[in-house]
Structures are given as structure tokens and as C-alpha cells.
């Protein structure tokens, strides 16, 4: 039996939302098969990976902590992608945000001013914006592809971070570890009660809702969507492509920077070489899985946050390698991109070949 892909001629609304569901189901099946190959009972492993982290208060608060940066970066990327600007350098903007805000927190004479912590956050936002701004500048000035430049800037940011925490910013009392001093109390993201849930976990969904309103209701959001869907129509309407590219990149860079500074002033508490487990890249999956919709991004971020926790749980309880988190994310993206074909195409069974040869006579 042979199949052929046939254009539908229109977007299938069913598959716009059905494709992530199908991708998640296929990912779970694949992960089960992979667990079986690795010698772990599939159902037990899947339960450990996907369900056990959700069964305790500690687990749920960890989920919120992991999801917060993914939501912030993911919603910024969704905003950016709406304008057809493909920023995949969220990780670099996250790192620069952490460095800019972290630098201020470490080296400004700290007095307990109430505005010091907001100033640190603002510095983080600006750091992310600068890093994304370079991408905008290169794209508009030299027509350089933003996918490449934003990706390359991730590695530059990473190297700056390593240089700083192993060199000039290394904690003199840190026994030579590549890390900065801990941030002071006035530059620390507050937690809620005794849990690990911090201010960022509240801020992230609020920002997502704000971006949702901007995309849907504001003139700016409208311009962004027009540029993304029909660049010529945007020109016809007189919307400036350059201005919108700047805004798209600065907003997504700023949100990534904010995620970075909250992460280092919150759960981590200092600058180290390992401040991000690839949040910026995972957020790309988050943005697409969430269909570039801020509310979808919140749900997608929760699922991918779960994959980090599940990886830890599988490592501790089943002795499976921690790399399954990355595999889960990769497989999910793979299936998502594959299933997205169904939005524009349908499978059609080919008629038996005999009919065609007969007809040709």
C-alpha cells in the first residue's frame, strides 16, 4: 500500500491543535520503546519520568521553578516568531541577562535600597536586549540571517560567562571553583514561604498574559502579525519592517534576559558556568508546541519542565542516564515538525498501479 502527500489547499484548524497532541502521544510511545531497549520496564519508567515528579509538593514546586524561565523565554520567542523573525539565541540572551544583572548585583555598593533588586532585574532585561539587538543590527544592516547570528551569539555569551567566572569575577573565597560570590540578600529573588517557588514563577505567566494581549489587541501586535503573515501587505499598510524587527528581537531578548537574571538571583544564587541547561533551546520547542500562542506556551513549558524533572527522577530511581531529557525534547520536536505537515497536507492512499496503466492504453 502506498501513500501520497496531497496539499489540502487550506490550513486544517483541527491539525493546528491536533498535531501537538499527536506529537506528544508518539513521543511517549517512542520513549516507552526506548526504555524497553535500555532494559527498564517501560510502564514503570514512563511513570517515573512523567508522573512521579507531579506527586509531591516538592515536585510541583520544582516544576514551577523549571517552567518559569521556559515560559518567559518561550513567550518572547513566540512574539518574535509571529513577525517571522527566527531568534534561536534565547540561551545567549538569557546568559547576557544573567551577566548584566549579576554584574550589577556583585559590584554595585549594595545598600538596602528597595529599588536595588528591580534595578538588577532591569539590568538583566537590558543585557538580553543588547544581545538580541546585535542580531537585529546585523540582520537589518548586513542582511545577515538571524538564525545563524543569534545561534553564534549563544556560544560567545557562553564563553564570556566562563571567562568571567573563572577569571575576573571568580569568588576569592570560592576554593578556586568557577563561580562568583553569592548575591547579597537585597539582590535575591524572593521565595514564597518555605517552598522553592519564587517571584519569577508568578511573573512568568503574568508576562505571558500581557504578551497575549499585546499580540491580540494592540496595533503593535497587529503590525507584527501582518509582517509575519504577509510582508508585502505590511509594506502596503506602511508598517516599517525594520522597526518591527527591532521590536521583535528586543522584546524576546529582554524576556530571555529577565529569565536569566531571575534564575541566577533566585534558584542558583550566584553566577556559575552552568546557569542554563539549554533553556533557550528548549524554549524554541516550547514556542512551537504552544503554537506561538502565549497561553499554549504556558502549557508547553510545563510539559518540557517536566522532562527535566523526569530525567532527574529516572536517573535517581532507575539508573537511567540523564540524557533522556534531551532525547525526550528532541523526539518531541521531531514528531511535532513531522505532524505539522498534516496542517497543510493530507495522506491519500494511492490507487493500485494497474488502473493507471490500463487507463493509459
Amino acid at each position, binding site marked *: 500500500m502506498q501513500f501520497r502527500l496531497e496539499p489540502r489547499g487550506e490550513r486544517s484548524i483541527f491539525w493546528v491543535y491536533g498535531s501537538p497532541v499527536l506529537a506528544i502521544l508518539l513521543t511517549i510511545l517512542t520513549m516507552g520503546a526506548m526504555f524497553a531497549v535500555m532494559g527498564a520496564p517501560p510502564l514503570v519508567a514512563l511513570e517515573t519520568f512523567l508522573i512521579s515528579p507531579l506527586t509531591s509538593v516538592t515536585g510541583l514546586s520544582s516544576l514551577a521553578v523549571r517552567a518559569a524561565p521556559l515560559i518567559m523565554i518561550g513567550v518572547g520567542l513566540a512574539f518574535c516568531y509571529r513577525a517571522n523573525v527566527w531568534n534561536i539565541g534565547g540561551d545567549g540572551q538569557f546568559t547576557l541577562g544573567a551577566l548584566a544583572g549579576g554584574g550589577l548585583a556583585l559590584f554595585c555598593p549594595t545598600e538596602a535600597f528597595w529599588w536595588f533588586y528591580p534595578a538588577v532585574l532591569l539590568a538583566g532585561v537590558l543585557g538580553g536586549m543588547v544581545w538580541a539587538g546585535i542580531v537585529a543590527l546585523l540582520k537589518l544592516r548586513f542582511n545577515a540571517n538571524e538564525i545563524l547570528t543569534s545561534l553564534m551569539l549563544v556560544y560567545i555569551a557562553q564563553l564570556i560567562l566562563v571567562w568571567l567566572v573563572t577569571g575576573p569575577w571568580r569568588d576569592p573565597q570560592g576554593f578556586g571553583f568557577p563561580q562568583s560570590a553569592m548575591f547579597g540578600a537585597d539582590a535575591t529573588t524572593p521565595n514564597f514561604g518555605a517552598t522553592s517557588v519564587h517571584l519569577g514563577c508568578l511573573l512568568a505567566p503574568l508576562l505571558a498574559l500581557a504578551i497575549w494581549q499585546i499580540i491580540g489587541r494592540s496595533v503593535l501586535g497587529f503590525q507584527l502579525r*501582518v509582517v509575519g*503573515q*504577509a510582508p508585502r501587505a505590511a509594506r*502596503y*499598510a506602511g508598517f*516599517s519592517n525594520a522597526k518591527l524587527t527591532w521590536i521583535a528581537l528586543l522584546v524576546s531578548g529582554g524576556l530571555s534576559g529577565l529569565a536569566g537574571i531571575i534564575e541566577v538571583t533566585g534558584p542558583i544564587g550566584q553566577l556559575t558556568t552552568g546557569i542554563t541547561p539549554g533553556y533557550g533551546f528548549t524554549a524554541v520547542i516550547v514556542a512551537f508546541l504552544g503554537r506561538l500562542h502565549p497561553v499554549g506556551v504556558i502549557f508547553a513549558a510545563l510539559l518540557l519542565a517536566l522532562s527535566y524533572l523526569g530525567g532527574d527522577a529516572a536517573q535517581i530511581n532507575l539508573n537511567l542516564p540523564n540524557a533522556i531529557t534531551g532525547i525526550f525534547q528532541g523526539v518531541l520536536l521531531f514528531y511535532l515538525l513531522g505532524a505539522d505537515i498534516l496542517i497543510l497536507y493530507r495522506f491519500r492512499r494511492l490507487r493500485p498501479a494497474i488502473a493507471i496503466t490500463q487507463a*493509459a492504453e
Partner: protein
Amino acid sequence: MDMQSAPSATPLLALRGIVKQFPGCLANDHVDLTVGANEIHALLGENGAGKSTLVKIIYGVMKPDAGSISWAGAPVTIASPAHARALGIGMVFQHFSLFEALTVAENIALGLNNPADRAGLTERIVEISTRYGLPLDPARAVHDLSVGERQRIEIVRCLLQNPKLLIMDEPTSVLTPQEVQKLFTTLRRLASEGCSILYISHKLEEIRALCERATIMRLGRVVAHCTPAEKTARELAELMISAKLKTQDFAHRIGHGAPPRLVLDRLTIRSNQQFGTDLKDISFSVAPGEILGIAGIAGNGQSELMDALSGEIPAGSPKNIMLDGVPIGHEGPRARRRRGCGFLPEERNGHGAVGPMTLAENGFLSAHVRGALDRLGLINRKRTRDFAAGVIKGFDVRTTGPEAEARSLSGGNLQKFLVGREVLQQPGVLVISQPTWGVDAGAAAAIYEALVALAEAGTAIVLISQDLDEILLLCDKIAVIAAGRVSPPMPVKQASIEQIGLLMGGGEAMEAAHAVPA
């Protein structure tokens, strides 16, 4: 109904009871069609009448839900376009599929089913093109060729396969009157040599001049088989569209002697498109209440002129374009709209409108400046919806409402919406390109009425169109664009078709027109 003229011998192609159902629309409802040997047969109907669907079934692109096809007397199932070509059916599409950067011969070679056919291809191209009066140089690159020459490539490509039936889809919409005459000579010659022609069009005079028999479709059904020469154009039109045609006799307004609203002064612009046309030294002016038609063959700088007038491409100097005495050459589209200009480009999808967005949003796209549809940086949803609803009502747009997506509308309905969107903003100057391209006769009439009413209210209108009939019907003055130059405008009443045709060809006629100050 007139069936006597059907040929008595076995017809070449006979369709019986063809049915094709699409979601929400019965595109072909028991359609019968018979094409005899040596016959030039017209398939006539408005956009949306089901002509394209029927042709796609004949050419193997689609399969009918019911009905039978017989080819030279034997029943067939046409499985694919390749199969159709193997049977001897060739098709020249309305929109060409050519690679601009490749030569004529390379383009033709790419379309061949069998690579072995490439040997001696150049010689065969030359032979066929001279035999049928289709001059073509196989070594030239396509981007240097006129639209008429490109069409010849497609025809020669079909003729290389020795077809017994050649399907031509709206072939004359891009040709000058002279080129149309040459094409007709070629088609008559082909028919006399045994290649039947199925000629799809909605241009009635052409069909009366060329075709021996006609099948007329309306709303998916065949409404008549007739002999076009025995009918007047008006009778054919009435068969094609259900209602009696409203008499369209727009009194041509005479210049009021008022100062011109829009003045172009030596506008010269380099095209921003690869293989685009540069605009050279364009000067004209339009007075209030005046409609200036810019005629010309596609690809002679119309889209560049549109972009220059709308502000999508800035002019070299602000004074190249003056609006009510104010230089606006450097202003962008929004600033020009704020001054009271309205624009509507030729391409609806992705330029004049955003397909996946709702009609309300598409209204906002161009009307938010003058319609005050935004407030404090937010979209005023109520005003936006009301504006779109007003356009839908005022221009009889058939749709479910302002929340319908633009792409869900038929071409004619979307165009009515877009024209209405610009007209309801009551612009002082309106620049509109190809307003009735791919639009059915009913919608076209509504668009014409709206434009004339707008001009009567004092708007200066520039109408860029490849449809000469449209320009002659609506415009007070006519100018011709060829190779990026625009001839001095002349009153429509003084213009002759021959003169316009020569100007469309550019070259010497255009030089002469510029040498004599109008």
C-alpha cells in the same frame, strides 16, 4: 439551445454528466461537453462558474465524482496530466510556469515527459514556431521576453507533443490587440490542421470572432450550447450571468478646470525586484473628478508605478510626486493615507489583503489611519468591526460577517470588500490597479459604479489596468505604460485602439508620443 451545429462524426472529446462536488459547493453539476475534430470550441462563463474545475478534470488534474469521458469515441479515465498529454491533450495555463533565469529551450526541455525527446529540440522549436507563426528564439532567457512571447513558449511546449486537443485558459488577458490577432491566426491554423481547441474565456467579442461553437456555464451547470457568431455579445453575456445586464453608460465627466490633485513630475525609480522594470521619467497629472487610465501589458512597470504612488518605494526627490501642491515623494504609505490618499494594488492575496486574517482585521490594515480605528495603541474592536460591517453591507460582499477570514471569500467578493474599504475612506486621490482582475461580471459592475460615484464626488482616480475595455468604459483620459515609460495622457474619446496598441508595444510609438507635447 442550439444543437444542430454539433458535428455528426465521432467527437474528439465527449463529457457526459460530469459531477464534481467540493465541500460546500457543487462545482460541476452534470456537465456535458462535446468538442469535435478541427473545432475551436469556447467554454464561456463567469469566474466561479466551474470552467476551471471542468478543465482540470479533462487535463487529469482532478477526478470527477460521476460522469464519463470519451476520447475519440472510446471511454477513458484520465489519471494524471501526464496521461492526458499521452492521449494528446495539451494545455496552456493562464499563469505560466517558466523559470525566468533559464532560456526558452531549457524551459521547454524541463517540461518534456521523456528526456530522449531533447535531442534536436532547438531545431524542432524553430520549426514549429515558424510553421505556426509563433516567433521564438530558443537561446534567449525568459526574463527578457514579453508576456506574449512567454505565452508562445507554453504553446510551443504543447505543440511539441503533437496534441489533438489544445486547451487555452484565458489566453488573451495579457496580450496587446495586435498580439491577440496573431494568436487567433495561429489557433485557426492549428484547428485547420487537425488540432481542436478548447478556448476558455469570458471575453465575448473574442469568442464571437474565433469560436465555432460555445458551451456556456453558470454556477456549475451548462446553461446553453450555441453558435457564438449567431448571438450578439449582449445575448452571450446575458446567458453567462443570470440577470439582465444593467446598461453601463457612464457619462464621461469633463475636466472641471480645477488645479490637479496629483502631479507626477519626472518620476524615475529603480525597481526593487529582480527582473523588475525601472520607471523612467514619468509625468502626468490628475484633476479632481477625473479618472486617468494607465493601459499596458503586464510587466511593463505597473507594479512599480503602483508601489511608487502608494509610497512603498520612495521617489528620488520629494517633488517627483505632489499632492495638492505638497511634495510627498519621500513619504511612506501611512503618511500619504493621512493626507487623503487611498491605494489598492493588483494582487489581493498577501498585498492588498492578508488571507488568514479576518475581514475586520483587513479593514483595519489600510483604514486605521483615516478611519481612526485605533486608540492609544490598541485596536478599537468595535469601530473596526463596524467599519468592516459597513463595507460588507455597502458593497454587497457575500460573507458570514466581519469575522470571516479573507481567504474564505471568492476572488470577486474579496475584491468588492477591498474596493469598498478604500472607497468608504473617501480618499481625495485613489490609485487602484486591476480592480476587476479575476472578478465576475456582477462584482465588476459594482466596482465600476463605486469608482464612478467616487470620481463624481471629486476624487482624482488613477486606474492601472490591462483590460482596455475597462479603461475605455471608465476613464476620461488614457495613458499607456510600456517598458517603464508612460505616454502623455490623451482624452479617451480621441484615442484609437490602433494607436493604443502601438504604444503598448513601446519603442518608436512611445518615442514619438513623447516628442510631440500633448
